[in-house]
């Protein structure tokens, strides 16, 4: 009986481990040397422009409360350190605070001030390992995300896992398939000519498989973000990352 339990436990942990690609490899390893060089240099990294802008916004009062982020959270280098490692959908959290606490009009999804603040907050955790855990609070979301990740959809009838688990490292036309980790977001993509959120990147994958894109702020995107965060746990945060 004890042997059986051990087998079952072992089987369960194997199944969990199989959900994460091994070895975990950040998207930066699959991108070209030019984008890697940009990411490594804080002056050349265009994402740092958003970080700089976010730093200014951090101490500017907003909304009818007349309060700035800094009025409650103080020095971001201290208070926001590690936040991006254990928080998913950073943009939504910031927007909740902006609308709920600062009494300001919520930022539009993918608007420049929102991305700037998110880039600034994520930057404070650079180098720290992603640490999204399976907790009672996020368990349901994580499992929904896991199911979505493995579900085929779109006219091409593809699941996320078919590219990012089964075929990472191989070519899809000119691109190398990455493992699909969120550890560099918000990231600057040369094709976007801007910093963008993880939600925007996931929507681009939906478009790629000819599926209907979920709206910004939809539960599907939130669940996928939770799952991707959990799946990437251990990878160092690179925000603001640079990709093609």
């Amino acid at each position, binding site marked *: 009986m004890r042997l059986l339990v051990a087998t079952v436990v072992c089987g369960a942990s194997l199944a969990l481990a199989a959900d994460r690609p091994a070895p975990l490899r950040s998207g930066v390893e699959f991108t070209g040397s030019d984008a890697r060089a940009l990411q490594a240099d804080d002056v050349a990294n265009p994402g740092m*422009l958003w970080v700089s802008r976010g730093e200014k916004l951090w101490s500017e009062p907003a909304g009818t409360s007349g309060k700035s982020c800094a009025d409650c959270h103080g020095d971001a280098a201290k208070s926001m350190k590690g936040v991006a490692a254990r928080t998913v959908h950073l943009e939504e959290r910031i927007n909740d605070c902006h609308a709920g606490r600062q009494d300001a009009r919520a930022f539009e999804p993918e608007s420049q001030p929102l991305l700037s603040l998110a880039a600034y907050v994520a930057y404070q955790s650079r180098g720290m390992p992603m640490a999204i855990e399976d907790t009672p609070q996020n368990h349901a979301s994580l499992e929904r995300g896991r199911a979505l990740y493995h579900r085929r959809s779109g006219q091409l009838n593809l699941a996320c896992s078919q590219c990012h688990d089964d075929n990472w490292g191989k070519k899809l036309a000119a691109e190398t398939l990455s493992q699909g980790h969120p550890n560099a977001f918000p990231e600057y993509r040369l094709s976007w*000519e801007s910093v963008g959120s993880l939600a925007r990147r996931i929507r681009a994958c939906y478009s790629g498989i000819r599926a209907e894109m979920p709206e910004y702020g939809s539960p599907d995107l939130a669940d996928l973000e939770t799952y991707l965060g959990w799946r990437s746990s251990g990878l160092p945060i690179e925000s603001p990352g640079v990709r093609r």
Partner: protein
Amino acid sequence: MPGRELTVAARVSVPATAKKGEPVEIRIAIQHPMETGFRFGIDGRAIPKNVINRFSCRFEGVEVFSAEMGSGISANPFLDFYATAEKSGTFEFEWIDDAGVRGRESAKIEVA
């Protein structure tokens, strides 16, 4: 330069110190869409061209570098050039786009 002034993010890198007569590397990244004028919006109308058309770098009031840019320059342009400082002073950077929006940055250098 004429035009409205607007705070746009820019990041400058100038060495804090240099030897007299030594060339120093100056790098600046400017946040700007550099709209080419060749694109159309979702309403089908052409998006007007708006690029940083002139950039200049002055050292203590004297222009030491300038650039004229057009549609071919990427969004969020990054400029990398060299200048020789003969004395301590301030580099002043200024640029203006087609919409008349101007930006400024500055950086000090100690010359020993």
